[in-house]
């Protein structure tokens, strides 16, 4: 029981640290495209670590199933919204800074 508890604390604290790092990235990185990668940290490992930590606290049961479904939903939806966001930005003509090549337009 001690080990499970300790593991869940590590996951909770590590996940929230990753989230803070992602938020820091939102501020520090130079343009929309790079910032979307930072938000990707929050969407994937940051939130999964926190949800996993909560699962270990909850033990087997309906609560754990609900947490798993939230994690699954985030995994399915995160890439879709960041893809839609960057595609809209690209179609709108936001430039990619320091790009080597400029492929044809996206409509």
């Amino acid at each position, binding site marked *: 029981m001690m080990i499970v508890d300790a593991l869940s604390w590590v996951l909770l604290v590590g996940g929230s640290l*990753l989230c803070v*790092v*992602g938020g*820091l*990235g939102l501020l*520090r*990185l*130079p*343009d929309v*495209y*790079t910032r*979307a*990668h*930072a938000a*990707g*940290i929050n969407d*994937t*490992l*940051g939130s999964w670590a926190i949800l996993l930590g909560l699962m270990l606290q909850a033990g087997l049961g*309906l609560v754990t*199933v*609900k947490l798993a*479904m939230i994690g699954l939903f985030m*995994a399915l939806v*995160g*890439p*879709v919204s*960041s*893809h839609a966001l*960057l*595609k809209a930005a*690209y179609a709108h003509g936001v430039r*990619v*800074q*320091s*790009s*080597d*090549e*400029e*492929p044809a337009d*996206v409509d």
Partner: protein
Amino acid sequence: MPRILSSLLVLVVAWGLWSGHGEPLIVGFGALSCLAVFGISRRMDRVVGEQPLDYGLALRSLGYLPWLLLQIVKSNLDVARLIVGSAPTVHSHLIRVQADQATELGRVIYANSITLTPGTITLDLRGQDLLVHALTRSAAEGVQEGEMGRRVSRLEGQG
């Protein structure tokens, strides 16, 4: 018929897990909402066309998902290290990647896997061409090397 049964089964199980109630009235509401969602998803099938049902894909994904999870963890740590570094040295650029999966579903899985790993985001999928934005040079090389593409092809069952 297997299609109708499996989607109804998924809806009923999802409803049961979320509610956890057993009273007749509430179960009746649950059955009604399952039927409503089922009707809406049938209507969506008419809009986007019926997708083929593939149970083998679900089995094969058991081999793919752990690998994908490992990649996600690795690239997450890479991007996190980049952000907290003294001066973020990003090399933000666009690359073209060939998605040679046979089916549309395979290409969508590939594009979504690329986006799911931080450091690379798919901007556009047109035919077999993927337009990918990469945060660093090493992230771009990781995609161009094509390991993920091969694994998705194998997942599809054609590779």
